[in-house]
């Protein structure tokens, strides 16, 4: 199965990169842009056909390496590869 994993900074964690992106959007004339937060997107193919087992595997990957859960949240979607 294929996992599409999104990693975002937890609310309240300062995001200077997001702030810089927001500033650049404003400089380009996008006055409507606000509260920009940046994160990471990771795709992983999991050699597992059972969705429950694939979920457990992806969650362990996120907890142990892909996200630093002190500052980051993760979410994912699974689909048949």
């Amino acid at each position, binding site marked *: 199965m294929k996992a599409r994993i999104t990693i975002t900074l937890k609310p309240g*964690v*300062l995001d*200077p*990169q997001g702030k810089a992106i927001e500033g650049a959007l404003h400089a380009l004339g996008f006055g409507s842009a606000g509260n920009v937060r940046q994160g990471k997107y990771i795709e992983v193919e999991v050699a597992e056909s059972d969705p429950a087992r694939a979920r457990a595997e992806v969650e362990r990957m996120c907890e142990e*390496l*892909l996200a*630093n859960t*002190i*500052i980051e949240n993760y979410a994912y979607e699974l689909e048949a590869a």
Partner: protein
Amino acid sequence: MNASVIVFPGSNCDRDAAVALEAAMGRPPAMVWHGDAELPNSDLIVLPGGFSYGDYLRSGAMAAHSPVMREVIRRARGGTPVLGICNGFQVLTETRLLPGVLMRNSTLRFVCKDVHLRVERNDTRFTRRYDKGDVVTFPIAHKDGSYFADEETLARLEGEGRIAFRYCNLGGELTAEANPNGSRNHIAGIYNETGTVLGLMPHPERLADPALGGTDGAKMFAGLVESLAA
């Protein structure tokens, strides 16, 4: 005394650390490749600065899972002193041997300059040659050095006296201008619960010889050798 310096792909201060250690110990440390599963007998383990694994994913994240790190973590938990400098500090937080995270500098810039640090304690192996409240000069060179931890963790670190060094001005004051990266509570370095693991962003090994322009860092290595060789 035996010391080991762990070398990751992308480490670039491993030799500087080895030179500073050799000057203090009178013999060179073992250089241990990250892929080694075995670690020699070590009275001190140093995780050097650099950009292990190109800072992929997060600074220190990949190195924290290197084969040799399992043994480093085991020894650290058993009481072996571990010194993590710059990228080594980032690796220590990723292994959770030290709490918190080193985040992107608040300025978003790579900062390379000498900074003043206030020595918060001098009752550890690392700082016994300094006086409490001393203002020392170490260089910094990093982009991900902004120390972050949640309020509860910060309160615990403060309450347990686990701040090793804080960024300050020449007079030892914690002014906003003296904080080069936006670190919480001006934190430049912290200890683990037992004071045997120290992680710091500044580089003591880079000002540890008169030829380098300063010797403030040499006292850390001299103190370690003094306490560990005894």
